């Protein structure tokens, strides 16, 4: 790419780590989309614009955003109140993009959430944020107060007929709260166990009322789509999935970080040009392309464009788009052991394949790392990946956990076998 690509989501974010206040956000075009929507567009046409843009959810599952909104029942008999929720419970290991977006430009999220609220004619908006994100909480709380004072929230927003209250809800931990229906239970003051679907949240969500839940990065796209139109938005991309994507890399690359790039930027280009390649003396062995619950990709996949379909064709998922890189001085069995330990710990205990299967897999992997691997362990782990597969549990935690495990067994099988054969972890002195 020779032309400097547009970065609508991050161009305004300051490099010194300071936050954009209301006035600075407005100077970058902030709240123009809200003025346009409330002044010239019906809720239906806001939905249509987002649907035509092709925006897909950035929280991991990639569901089309406009379509999700369209599931909310409308008309005079439709249930009220309606809720719209920003899922700011970023806790997918290796994922750090939403924190950056909220700390750098909280008003951009607030505007996106108001627009989503307008599109479904919501009454109340929540930002459900994890308890550990203290700086983001402080900045959002201040920004919400500024937005109320400016007439962007509350009764008759910008003197229109639309009213919306916005509440910052600070959570108290647990990965399960980021799962859509677990989040609903957490908001109701319950344990964050998943709910049976259907009914889906747009029909019966929090307190049984229609509820839309969108990821932070998804929502910050909305003001730009409304301000500049779906055709402009589609032109930002290098692939069939439109827009830009916030990609990230962590692990032993030269320059770990986040970059807003055209959707569909190839994996290898992100790792080489943006992350600077591997640290000196280290070789690339593999990567989890979109957080902990995605399948490993390896050398042969470096040309894969990072969009929803192409990453899926390569056998993994775009997920959150923030990659975790495995180098040749790091033990792949140890890495998978760490991941499965996380998922076993964060399992809420609701479904047997999840709490039982993950704890079993965790014990096998830990024993292998400690030099107590047994013949037959790999077959047991392989069995667990089937047991944890989609359809056996209420939510996606267990199937997500199976992804790095099953792909590691495929790509790093020699390393697993060597642990058992040598009765030790070859990476430990």
């Amino acid at each position, binding site marked *: 790419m020779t032309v400097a690509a547009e970065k609508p989501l991050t161009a305004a974010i300051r490099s010194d780590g300071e936050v954009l206040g209301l006035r600075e956000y407005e100077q970058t075009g902030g709240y123009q989309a809200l003025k346009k929507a409330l002044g010239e567009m019906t809720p239906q046409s806001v939905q249509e614009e987002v649907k035509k843009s092709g925006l897909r959810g950035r929280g991991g599952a990639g569901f089309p955003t406009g379509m999700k909104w369209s599931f909310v029942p409308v008309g005079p008999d439709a249930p009220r109140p309606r809720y719209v929720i920003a899922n700011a419970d*970023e*806790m*997918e*290991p*290796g*994922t*750090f993009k*939403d*924190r950056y977006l909220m700390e750098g430009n909280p008003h951009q999220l607030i505007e996106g959430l108001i627009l989503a609220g307008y599109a479904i004619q919501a009454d109340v908006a929540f930002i459900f944020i994890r*308890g*550990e*994100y*203290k*700086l983001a909480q402080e900045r959002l709380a201040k920004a919400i107060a500024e937005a109320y004072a400016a007439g962007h929230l509350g009764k008759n927003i910008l003197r229109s007929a639309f009213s919306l209250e916005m*509440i910052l809800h*600070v*959570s*108290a*931990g*647990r*990965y399960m709260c980021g799962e859509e229906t677990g989040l609903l239970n*957490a*908001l*109701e*003051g*319950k*344990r*964050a166990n998943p709910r049976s679907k259907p009914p889906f949240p747009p029909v019966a969500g929090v*307190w049984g009322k229609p509820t839309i839940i969108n990821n932070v990065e998804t929502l910050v796209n909305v003001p730009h789509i409304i301000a500049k139109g779906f055709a402009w938005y589609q032109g930002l991309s290098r692939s069939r999935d439109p827009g830009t994507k916030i990609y*990230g*890399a*962590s*692990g*032993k690359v030269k320059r*770990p*970080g*986040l970059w807003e790039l055209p959707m569909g930027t190839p994996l290898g280009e992100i790792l080489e040009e943006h992350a600077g390649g591997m640290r000196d003396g280290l070789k690339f062995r593999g990567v*989890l392309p979109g957080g*902990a619950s995605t399948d490993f990709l390896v050398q042969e996949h470096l040309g894969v464009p990072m969009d929803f379909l192409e990453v899926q064709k390569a056998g993994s998922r775009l997920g959150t788009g*923030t990659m*975790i*890189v*495995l*180098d040749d001085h*790091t033990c792949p069995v*140890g*890495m998978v052991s*760490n*991941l499965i330990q*996380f998922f076993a*710990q*964060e399992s*809420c205990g609701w479904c047997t394949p999840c709490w039982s299967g993950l704890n079993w897999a965790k014990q096998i992997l830990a024993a292998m790392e400690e030099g107590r691997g047994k013949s037959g362990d790999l077959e047991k782990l392989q069995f667990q990946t089937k047991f944890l597969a989609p359809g056996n549990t209420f939510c996606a935690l267990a199937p997500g956990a199976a992804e790095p495990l099953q792909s590691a067994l495929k790509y790093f099988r020699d390393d697993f076998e060597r642990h058992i054969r040598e009765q030790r972890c070859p990476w430990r002195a």
Partner: protein
Amino acid sequence: MLTAEERQEIEAELAHYPTREAVCIDAMKIVQRHRGWVSDESIRDIAELLEMSAADLDGVATFYNLIFRKPVGRHVIMVCNSVSCWIMGYERIREHLTARLGIEFGETSPDGRFTLLPIVCLGACDHAPAMLVDNELHVDLDPERIDRVLEECK
């Protein structure tokens, strides 16, 4: 018994939610902010105020890892043990902290100064390894940096 201040803060939250139960996690956090942790007595008091059973509330309390059901030290250290930090040297960080403080995960130092806990990914993966001390984020950790942070904690 809840203090007047605690009760007032909890009741202010009720305005935002359609049920009393919805406020229960916030209520426990309010009490924890004042007292450092949530005792059995506080569980009973909050449950009564919110018209829940104490058993139901304890079920919620024990689900959420940021609600402390045991007393903690004056400073709570939470060390990220998720994958990016693990790759970037989490084990060395943990060893340094446990040796320096003389306690393991889940323990409080005998002088009541520190409690050491593991925590899931803190979203600071580009600056791993990372930890929280009293909810403040510290990144790019090495033993020297940890020592400097600990010295600040009286």
